[in-house]
């Protein structure tokens, strides 16, 4: 139990550090992408670096948000049953979004 909490603590910090450069790259390209049309956006992903960075971003953001929201639930929700339900919703949310994102990226590059 103790090690489990420590692992979560470490993963939360490591994912935070990994996300920093990914986020900056992502936000910088977002502004560029908003002004591009469909073919322009496809061109952006016709590049392994973009695909790799977006994939890593999806994975680490999913991991980081799961731990972060879980921590908030732990701090503010006392009812064990409600806590269990909310944690399941968070788990689903943090897993489905990266999976949908990665499948979409695969469709885009195919």
């Amino acid at each position: 139990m103790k090690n489990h909490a420590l692992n979560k603590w470490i993963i939360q910090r490591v994912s935070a550090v990994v996300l920093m450069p990914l986020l900056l790259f992502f936000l910088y390209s977002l502004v560029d992408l908003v002004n591009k049309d469909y073919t322009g956006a496809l061109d952006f992903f016709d590049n392994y670096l973009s695909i790799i960075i977006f994939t890593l971003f999806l994975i680490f953001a999913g991991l980081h948000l799961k731990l972060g929201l879980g921590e908030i639930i732990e701090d503010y929700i006392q009812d064990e049953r409600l806590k269990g339900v909310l944690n399941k919703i968070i788990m689903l949310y943090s897993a489905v979004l990266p999976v949908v994102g990665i499948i979409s990226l695969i469709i885009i590059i195919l």
Partner: protein
Amino acid sequence: MEKNSGPLSPHLQIYKWQFSSLLSITHRLTGTINTVGFFVIVLWILFLALGPEYYNFYQTFLRSFIGKFILVGFTWSFVYHMFNGIRHLAWDFGYGYEIKTANLSGIIVLFLSILTTFFIWII
């Protein structure tokens, strides 16, 4: 009914507001907002994969005034969370606990987050 008697965090309704606690709460608030921003991002990638009709529909919304406002807001939220996260990491390593230092780093984080958002969108 069996209740968990574990400690809870201070209830925000009765907590005395201070600059430090405001920034701390904002960290969690922006973290939660970022999870919604993440949804917007994934939806954007999904619509790009689904084809031009879906993508253009979404893009038209994002390019509108409300869409831009939302995107700039999410950008600030992400950037603030990142800079304040660095502050948290420094605390994890035992640095910056003095009240003066913590307040100063808080002001720097606030300033940097606004400046970075400005740079990302204007320049």
